[in-house]
């Protein structure tokens, strides 16, 4: 009898428990390289930004500018166009570049795009709502000397279950006053993805 009750209780517990299991989550370092699909990912964005900014800062234009002007250049990041066959979040890439530029300490970086618009709105708002002593002054922005622009393209080829994608990131630094291109570089990332082979 006891055995029956025990069996019954075990069955009920098993039924109530079901067999569903939650997702398995493993924390990893944010700089760990994880390639799941072979598509452009955060690692590609970060590595490309590091390489590009490093290349840009080692270009001869920087020393020339400092020597001519006696100060660090002011740089703004413009548009990074996605001309690839993947939906690449250009905003993440732009943020990676901005971080590298600011952290380098070798150029002065100014905000552009939506961030600049938001700041301008706030500054305008301060003119009527903040005290005269604390309100940010109008027309006192730091004007940029150079704008960084770029384009991401990709080419995909596939044969015999393998897919190769070549990502090409072209970037350039353009003088805002004279449209001179003072630095150009290209970074290529090639990814080979092997599809599951048909198992006959």
């Amino acid at each position, binding site marked *: 009898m006891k055995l029956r009750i025990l069996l019954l209780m075990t069955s009920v517990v098993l039924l109530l428990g079901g067999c569903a299991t939650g997702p398995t989550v493993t924390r990893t370092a944010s700089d760990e390289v994880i390639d799941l699909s072979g598509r452009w990912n955060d690692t590609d964005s970060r590595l490309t930004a590091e390489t590009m900014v490093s290349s840009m800062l080692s270009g001869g234009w920087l020393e020339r500018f400092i020597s001519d002007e006696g100060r660090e250049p002011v740089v703004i990041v413009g548009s990074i166009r996605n001309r*690839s*066959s993947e*939906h690449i979040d250009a905003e993440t890439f732009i943020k990676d570049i901005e971080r590298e530029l600011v952290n380098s300490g070798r150029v002065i970086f100014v905000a552009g795009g939506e961030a600049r618009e938001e700041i301008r709105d706030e500054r305008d708002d301060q003119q009527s709502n903040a005290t005269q002593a604390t309100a940010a002054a109008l027309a006192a922005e730091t004007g940029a000397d150079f704008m960084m622009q770029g384009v991401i393209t990709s080419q995909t080829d*596939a044969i015999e*279950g393998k897919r190769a994608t070549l990502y090409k990131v072209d970037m350039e630094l353009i003088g805002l006053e004279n449209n001179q291109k003072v630095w150009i570089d290209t970074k290529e990332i090639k990814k080979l993805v092997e599809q599951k082979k*048909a198992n*006959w």
Partner: protein
Amino acid sequence: MRRDLSRFTNSILISTLLIMSILSLISCASIKTQQDQYHESIPLARDGSYEQASIIIQDAKEEEYQKKDRVLYYLDLGMLYHWSGEYELSNKMLTKAENAIEELFTSSISKAMVSGVLNDNALDYSGEDYEDIYLNVFKALNYIALEDEESAFVEIRRVQIKLNLLEDKYKELVEEYNASADAKGELEYRENRFHNDVLARYISLLLYRAEESWDDARIDSKSMHDAWITQKHLYNFTKPSFPRVVPGDENRALVNIISFSGMSPVKLADTIYIQSGPSIVFLTMTGQSEDYVTNLVGFNFLVIPGIQSGIHFKVQFPHLSSRRSEADRVVVKMDGVEVAEISMLEKMEVIARETFLLKQPLTIGKTIIRATIKNITKEIGKGAMQQGLSDQGAGGLIVGLLAGLAADVAVDATENADLRISQFFPSYARAAEIVVEPGNYNVKVEYWNGNNLMAEIDHGMREFTVDGLNLIESFMLR
């Protein structure tokens, strides 16, 4: 003796019951394509009630669509969301479909070769190639509607990549199968004859032109012209006039209208039955009509002396059946005045057929191989069983015949063509370019069948500007 017969008879009946039970346990969806969800949703979509149709499809999740049918669910819902103007939801669904198609393609085909017991309905549906290509076209149109031209470009580029991959897709699979040790027959492949999609090029041209990339726009225009030369089998109608690819009058607006009509093809089943009598073989072929009614297509017999009676064989495979469009003329009106007839740009159903035929040798080949193995195994089993029972006298003979009949029914029930295909892609794409003074216009698109006005789609007041993209997408799925 009587006890032996009874024991043997019982064992046969138990075996038969077991087969029937197994078949009943395997859900119906595993052996037959589920189409109940379309009985109401297709008429609703035809009448322009896309939201209601999408609710029916959503409600059919889990019952009519199982996990193995997820590509179909995403495609059906993604297209209905597109037609109802839910562009973000449409993109979400079509992206899920695209990812699942990529993930499933290789594994589904390989499993299909060895799925000896059941049929392709039991496997994951990995989509038709034309679905995989056109989903990017509609995602591009979704992004244009969402004013995200950069993402629309991404989708159009994916079309070209897929067309390039299509070149060798089935050739590789067939070669792999033929070279494998487990190959149970030699399969053949068909040469790909679809390399260049005019509809995708048309959208690409408009996007490039809107950003004044004239060289890229010209390349697309040239590719479109080339399609009428290199792909005559797909573009066998009068070439329409293409959008201009040189800077024009700075004071005029270029308006482009893309119109879709009809519904994409469906898959219907063709069945061949082979039944033997004493020294004679009967061949019966049946085919499904567009209403899914099975009709006798042909009957023949062959006299083959010495052949045993009682052999029963069924093979079923799908064919593509066009649903066309009732609309034979589409015109655009601005402020009540007819300004252009919209010309045929692409017969999407013809592209569907072309890509379907690429896969068809593989489908028929594997169906025949699988059905042959299944039926031969069954016939050997029937022969052994009937031999055993015939030794038990007249009663045993009758039981043997009945058990053989049950085996025929059971195996027939598992041999069904996989008729899964998305239902809400259109059949035809038309396009026109109209040059107007910049400003606001009331735009209506009329769909005509002979002298009968089928539908008048009111696109409301639209502002057309000198710069950018002035694109109107019009549709009517009849």
